[in-house]
């Protein structure tokens, strides 16, 4: 059997990689995918604790998180398309209209 700490450590590492991706990338689509990766790391913690406690409530929360991720992806990609139409780039350093 595998200790629960192994799963939690995997989730923490994936979350860290996602945070790293958000911070280092200039491509807004890669940033967006890094956020999805962080959501998945949170899901893995929920599922690991759900297994440790022997109840399936965590799976329901994972389902809700997946729905929120789908909604977020739809709205976020629509915003990316709109911004790309105005700025002709996906470089986030050029998205500086709100900067003063």
């Amino acid at each position: 059997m595998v200790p629960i700490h192994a799963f939690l450590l995997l989730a923490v590492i994936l979350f860290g990689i996602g945070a790293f991706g958000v911070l280092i990338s200039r491509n807004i689509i890669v940033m967006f995918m890094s956020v999805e990766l962080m959501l998945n790391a949170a899901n893995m913690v929920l599922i690991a604790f759900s297994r440790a406690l022997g109840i399936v409530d965590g799976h329901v929360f994972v389902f809700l998180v997946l729905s929120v991720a789908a909604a977020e992806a739809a709205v976020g990609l629509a915003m990316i398309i709109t911004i790309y139409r105005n700025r002709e780039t996906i470089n986030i350093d050029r998205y500086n209209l709100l900067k003063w």
Partner: protein
Amino acid sequence: MTIDYTIFLISAAVAVFGATMMIMQRNPVASVLYLIVSLVAQAVVYVQLGAIFMGAILIVVYAGAILVLFLFVIMLLNLRANPELSAGMPTLSWFTRTAVPVLLIVELYFVIDRVMLPSAPTGMLGEVEDNFGAVHDVAIKMFTDYLYPMQLTGVLLLVAVVGAVVIARRETAEPRKTAVNPGDKAEKPSNTVAG
């Protein structure tokens, strides 16, 4: 080393590898494909944790639908590997960009290491019944205890779909109407003249 542990180590390594390659790629299409690799490995870990239904949902919804949506947007914007996106103009210093995630990982691991749950000892995972995490159990929870959150999720998805359409719509409906109508009127006299 048991077979369980071997499977876990392999899938964890693939998940971390895919995630790392995802943020290192210049080409966004390659990024999406590496994220799919990572997600499939994560689905293996889910199944190993007894979450069979959630593993299937992860592959179908995430790898099958959301990431294909990403690919569609990348194709729609006609993006290619762009050297501008990987060099120059750092808004954050390299130290900050590296230190923040490393500190985050260390901090989160200490939090997890110290967490104490009364009925979940931090050692090996115990045995659960065979159908743990199958569709039956999850669905019963989902449609009894968590019925209202599920209904609200449906409303959220509806709002997201309508919002996405409204945001991504081109604002050309009105100008075209005003431009086309005078043209029609201008054409008609010329037709009668020609006739």
